[in-house]
Structures are given as structure tokens and as C-alpha cells.
């Protein structure tokens, strides 16, 4: 079968590959070589080269000054519409939320920071018994859930010290009391790991994991978190952590295009 023929859904495979190669440039990487791009897209070098040739002909990709590499072309400026707003964090994160839910089967939450609170803004709640709830608009103090700790951990130390000064008890329902030193140890562990993981003891021990969503200016847009009963989630996390991190990496390659401050997105 010729590769230019449509597949079962009526999609044209060769064109789909060309569009996929162009998608590869929707990241904070300014230019690619063929080998590099074919690795990122998991395509053969030959397919990548052919797609690039078409994209150069169309003007959506141009060769760099040296001629050996490729960069995004100015004709992508034609693909805009004044009447449409830029996507927001919920739109950017929606595919990752769905993928993580499909992978884990547990509740997935998207949270942002508002002052000293983590706020639920989107997600999918599982129908399984014993679960973290998704409460859109709900607030949690930053020292409570693992998502809040991640928001604190990737800020400067001085900001964390100020936070502790405002909330000296660091108590949170369902958690054992902790000292300031223990709190800092939790922060350090998150920084070292690059994401947060926390076991809430109790009648039904719950295990949560939270990933930072990075912006163009190396600040956090928010956090994507999932979790559930430890007995169910721990083995799943062990086998799925690689895929989870891959999903997050794909999401962050897009969120890194936008600055952290929302007012800078659409026009800034």
C-alpha cells in the first residue's frame, strides 16, 4: 500500500508524519539536526528527512545559517486567527491529565498556587473506591498535600522561610505533627527527586505523587498530581514511573513556551 493512502480513519499517513515533524518544533529547542529530531519523534531518519524537505518547501521550517540544521519557519505566522485566544494551562494540560488517568486509573488533579494555597483547577476523578477527591476550586494549605509541597519546594528558600513564619505549626489533618527540620527534609527530598511523593498514614494509607509544571521563566505554572490507596498505587507507580515522567516531559516542552504569569500568555 502506498504510504500516501489514507488509513482506516481516513487520515493520510504521509501528511500525518509531516505534521508530526512540525509538531517537534513546538518546543523551547530552537533548532534540530535530522538525527536529533528523528530520535525525539521516534521516526526513521529517512522519514524525518522527507518530512523536513516538504516542510522547507512549504516554508514552515527553514535551514539554519549553517545550513545543516533546521529551525521553525516564519510561515507559521500565517496559522493564526485574531478571534482565537491562546490556550490556557487547563487546555495545555488536558492531554497529559487524560494520559495519566488512562495509565494509573486513579484520580488526577491539576493545581495552581494562589498565595498560600494550592487550588484545584482541573482533573479527572476515578470511580474506584478509596480515592483522592477532585474538588474544583478547593483550597489546600501548601504544607498539606504533596502538590502544595512541590509548589513550595521549587521556589527560593527565602520564600519557604517566610511561609513557615506565617504557618509555624505546619500541622495538617491526617498527618503526624512535624518539626521545621523535618519539613525542610521533605522539601530537600522533592528538590533532589524532581517531583514529590508522599505517604499519608491512616486507616487507609494513601500514596500521592506530584510533578511540577515548568514555565518559560523557570517558575511553576502549577502541579499535576495523582495517587490513591498505597496498596493499589505503590506497585503501579513502580512500573509506570518512566511513562509518567515521559508524559510530564511532553507537557513541560509545551508549558515552557509560556511565562508563569497568566497575564503574560495571550498578549505578553
Amino acid at each position, binding site marked *: 500500500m*502506498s*504510504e*500516501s493512502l*489514507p488509513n482506516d*480513519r*481516513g*487520515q*493520510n499517513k*504521509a*501528511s*500525518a508524519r*509531516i*505534521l*508530526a515533524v*512540525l*509538531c517537534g*518544533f*513546538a*518546543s*523551547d529547542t*530552537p533548532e534540530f539536526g535530522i538525527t536529533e529530531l528523528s530520535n525525539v519523534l521516534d521516526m526513521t531518519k529517512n522519514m524525518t528527512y*522527507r518530512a523536513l524537505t*516538504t516542510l522547507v*518547501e*512549504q*516554508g*514552515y521550517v*527553514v535551514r*539554519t*545559517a549553517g545550513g545543516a540544521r533546521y*529551525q*521553525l519557519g*516564519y*510561515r*507559521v*505566522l*500565517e*496559522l*493564526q*486567527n*485574531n*478571534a*482565537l485566544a*491562546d*490556550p490556557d494551562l487547563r*487546555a*495545555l494540560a488536558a492531554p497529559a491529565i487524560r494520559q495519566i488517568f488512562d495509565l494509573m486509573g486513579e484520580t488526577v488533579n491539576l493545581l495552581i498556587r494562589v498565595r498560600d494555597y494550592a487550588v484545584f483547577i482541573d482533573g479527572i476523578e476515578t470511580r474506584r473506591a478509596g480515592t483522592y477527591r477532585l474538588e474544583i476550586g478547593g483550597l489546600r494549605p501548601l504544607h498539606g498535600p504533596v502538590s502544595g509541597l512541590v509548589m513550595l519546594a521549587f521556589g527560593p528558600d527565602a520564600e519557604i522561610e517566610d511561609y513557615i513564619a506565617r504557618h509555624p505549626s505546619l500541622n495538617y489533618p491526617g498527618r503526624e505533627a512535624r518539626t521545621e527540620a523535618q519539613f525542610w527534609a521533605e522539601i530537600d527530598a522533592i528538590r533532589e527527586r524532581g517531583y514529590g511523593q508522599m505517604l499519608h498514614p491512616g486507616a487507609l494509607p494513601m500514596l500521592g505523587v506530584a510533578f511540577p509544571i515548568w514555565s*518559560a*521563566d523557570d517558575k511553576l505554572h502549577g502541579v499535576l498530581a495523582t495517587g490513591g490507596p498505597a496498596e493499589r498505587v505503590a506497585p503501579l507507580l513502580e512500573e509506570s514511573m518512566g511513562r509518567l515522567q515521559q508524559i510530564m516531559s511532553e507537557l513541560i516542552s*509545551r508549558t515552557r*513556551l*509560556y*511565562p508563569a504569569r497568566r*497575564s*503574560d500568555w*495571550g*498578549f*505578553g
Partner: protein
Amino acid sequence: MTPPSRRAAINSSASHVFEVLRFVAEAAEPLGVTEIARRLNLPASTVHRALVTLEEANYIQRYQNTPCFELGMMPHLLNRALLNHFALHSYSRPQLHALAAETGHTVSLWYRLGWYGIRIGGAFGSQDIHHRARLGETDLLHRGPGPAAILAYLSSSERQAYARFAKAKFPELPPIGGWEEIEDRLAGLRTRGFARQSLPIARDFHAVALPIYDAREQVVGSLMMEGEFDEVNPSQEMHKAREDIEAGLRAEPKRFESPFSHIDVDEIYIRIIDSNDQP
């Protein structure tokens, strides 16, 4: 090696896909298969296949569960990625926000790319009542005060080269008053030191734009402010913001070079449509 006939089929299919994508991008409202096929004079089956391919890859999306399509997320991401390659886009952000906050007016930064101006930065002012401006907006240098504040300060030979390009590629988009009057208008702009234009949004709404110079004393962009003005002149705050941006350009000229500086200006072609001609 791909046989020529098969290769031609791939290119033809890809060119239909991009043709449909550009059409959806330019449309004033979401469009369905039949309408797109009719307007592009393509078989409905070809358009259907192109739409499925584009939707799968996130370039277009269904409009509110209807069989009509509008731009999806991917073109937004590509545009944002392109803007991020212009160092001035993120560098100018604090200055633009400070200027918008101080004056309450919407401000934009236009940058020269070939014979076009691109809006690469901006901040809405608190007094903004209606604005559809967006980053990445591109126009010919003779259209609008932002691009015109760049055109006016090009050398005489560059302005002649520009006129040749614009007349050849965009005969349907002549300057207001025609090509015969443009030199006088640009001379007036240079005498004044800034571009200005009344905006149709409301009475007393205007735009003013100041040229921005780089380290070589070449005009590479312009700073534009839009809003309700008592006097249609650039404010002191606007001059100060321009100075701050120019200081950055002078301090690190290499960093702020255009990502397309290696391409001949006449080769840079970006399709511009008059907003009145939108499908």
C-alpha cells in the same frame, strides 16, 4: 529512493492539508467540509481526509461539538515557539508591562522581519476596552503605525526595494493614498518622530508608535501605544520604555539578532490577507 510519482502524490496530499489548514486559520468563523471544499475548489473527500489528518494532530479542532472546525492548539504552540526565538520577546516583557501599568494603555512591540512587521510583545492596559490584538500578528511595513514607524526609517534604497516587493506580491494591498503619496507620508512621520493613527474603536482612540534603534543605529522595531489620548503624542513614559529597550539592544547586539537574519529579505514571504477579505 522514492519513485517520482509516489513522491508527487505525497507532496500533493501534504499541500492540500496545508491549504486546508491555512483556510481554517484565516476563516472568520468555524467552517464545515462542504464549505471548505466549495471555497477551495477541492473534492469533499480530499478535504475530509485533510481535516481528519489535521484534527488527529491537534492542528484543528471541532467547534463546540459541531461538524465545523477552527484552529486547534498546535498552531498556537508553533507561534509561541517562534516568538520565543526572538530574544526581544521575553526581554521586553517587564518594560511593556511597566509601561501599560503606568499609563493604563495597551502597548505593543513590533519587530522587523524581512519586509514585514511582527507584533512580538505586548501588554494590555487597564483602560483597554476592546482588543483583539495578539502576539505574532504580522503585516506589511506600510500597514499600521507599528510597522510604518519601521518603514519610515529605512534608507531610501531600502524603501524603494520594499515598494517593489509590496507592489509585486501584494498589489491588492496598496498604502492609503496610493504608492505615489507614501514618500510624503513617511517624510511627515520622520519629521514628527513617530507614527500615529486614529482607531475606529471609538472617538479619541489613537495609536502612536516610536521607532526603536539597535546598536548599529538601524531601526529594527517600534514601540506602539493604543488608547484614548488627549494629545496624540508619545508620552514621557513611552520614551523612557523605548530607551530601556534600546539599552538592551546596544548592550548585547548578538543576542537580539533576528533568527532569520541569514535569509535574504526578498525571499521572506508571509501571506497577508486584508481582514475584510476573510473567508
